[in-house]
């Protein structure tokens, strides 16, 4: 029996609610990074019944903060780019996690093999996969964990 998600997954993790404001979600990202002692770049979104309904990544937030017409401003060096970002942040204030989260999710179970996890991460370009048991989230596997586990074997 090889290594499975059960051996690799983190079972302590922060989650977000769909109705959480983006600014609040950003605070949770920072808090999670401090408590987990590693930078957290993506979080699971769980509804009030405990069901996984989405994922919010750093990319989703960056997409929201990217000024819409950046292709126009990007080439103008005399423009105050700081003001552009301030304006984007102001407009993002009423946006909720549920408005920008990704809902097209791939999940695994605790018994999913390492090779399968690696294959999913490469094929689907994803860095973290929720682990479900009977529909409930029991953990999350990060690509860094997979990488360092494999690198360790390579060294040995």
């Amino acid at each position, binding site marked *: 029996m090889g290594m499975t998600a059960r051996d690799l997954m983190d079972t302590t993790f922060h989650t977000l609610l769909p109705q959480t404001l983006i600014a609040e979600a950003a605070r949770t990202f920072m808090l999670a990074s401090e408590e987990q002692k590693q930078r957290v770049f993506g979080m699971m979104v769980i509804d009030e019944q405990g069901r996984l309904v989405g994922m919010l990544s750093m990319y989703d937030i960056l997409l*929201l903060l990217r000024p819409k*017409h950046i292709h*126009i*401003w990007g080439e103008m060096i005399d423009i105050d780019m700081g003001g552009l970002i301030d304006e*984007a942040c102001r407009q993002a204030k009423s946006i909720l996690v549920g408005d920008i989260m990704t*809902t097209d999710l791939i999940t695994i179970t605790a018994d999913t093999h390492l090779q399968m996890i690696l294959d999913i991460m490469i094929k689907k370009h994803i860095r973290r996969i929720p682990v479900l048991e009977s529909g409930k989230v029991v953990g999350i596997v990060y690509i860094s964990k997979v990488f360092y586990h494999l690198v360790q074997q390579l060294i040995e």
Partner: protein
Amino acid sequence: MPVIDRKNVLSGLMVREAMRKLVTHLPMDASIEQAARYAIKYKVNAILITGEKLEAIGVVSKTDLMGAYYAGLPVETAVQAIMVGPPMFCQMDDSLESALDTMRNSGIHRLYVVGDTPNRAAGVLAYPDIVGLLYRYCHKCEKSITRLRGTRSSDDLAGQLMVREVMSPSVLAHGADDTLLQVMEGLASHRFGAVLIRESHGLPAGVVSKTDMVIAYKHRIPTEAKAREIMAHPVHACEQDEPLAMAIQKMIFSDIHRLFVYKEHPHNIIGVLSLTDAARVRSGSCRACTSSRIIEDGPRG
């Protein structure tokens, strides 16, 4: 009416130079909730609806999403129930002039650009893309006033188009205590993208746009809620004697589609300037590069 447009800055430009290559699309069985989420997340005004082979079959715009909100459709409803189709296409090598003509004649705000595969969108062209292209030309021009810092002399302003020459001289306003249903009726009947919201004493209080309605729909706010609950403020506005170039800069800078126009005092709103209006002034923002500016009537942004 004969049109002489040899000095028009759009002359010779093709659709491929202004179009965006990323087309936001969803399958026809996706929910309205998903379409609203895409409109918010990707900051787009419309989503292309595709069939099994990614062929374009329809479009769901913020106007359609607002219509569904008004009609009380559950957000779980499939987008095919509200999409409008088929989408209108243009070719990458069409002139921007002809694309603008098609948009104006058909009363639409965007054209999809067909690529190598028939009926598949390789890009999309909308009014803000054209304004963006024009703005880049104007900004690089040696006569550009957008690069000036501090006060502008009358020499600097000579030849500049002013906001009042391009704006729509009518303003749709609702009371801050009007319901979202009432505001939606106003938006739909005037084909406006946003309305001014006034307090009971008449002063401007905020703005409610179709985007705000889509967000309210997504957040399941009842349509009986008051406009003040969802309005954005402050009101982005400019003076009627502001150069058009500066107004366009403000709009693009603030990611907004329109500016309210005031006379003498910000409380005295007298018109609206939209990116659509600006796109219609096909030669950019000053008279330096054209003797044949063409301003046409068409749908209001």
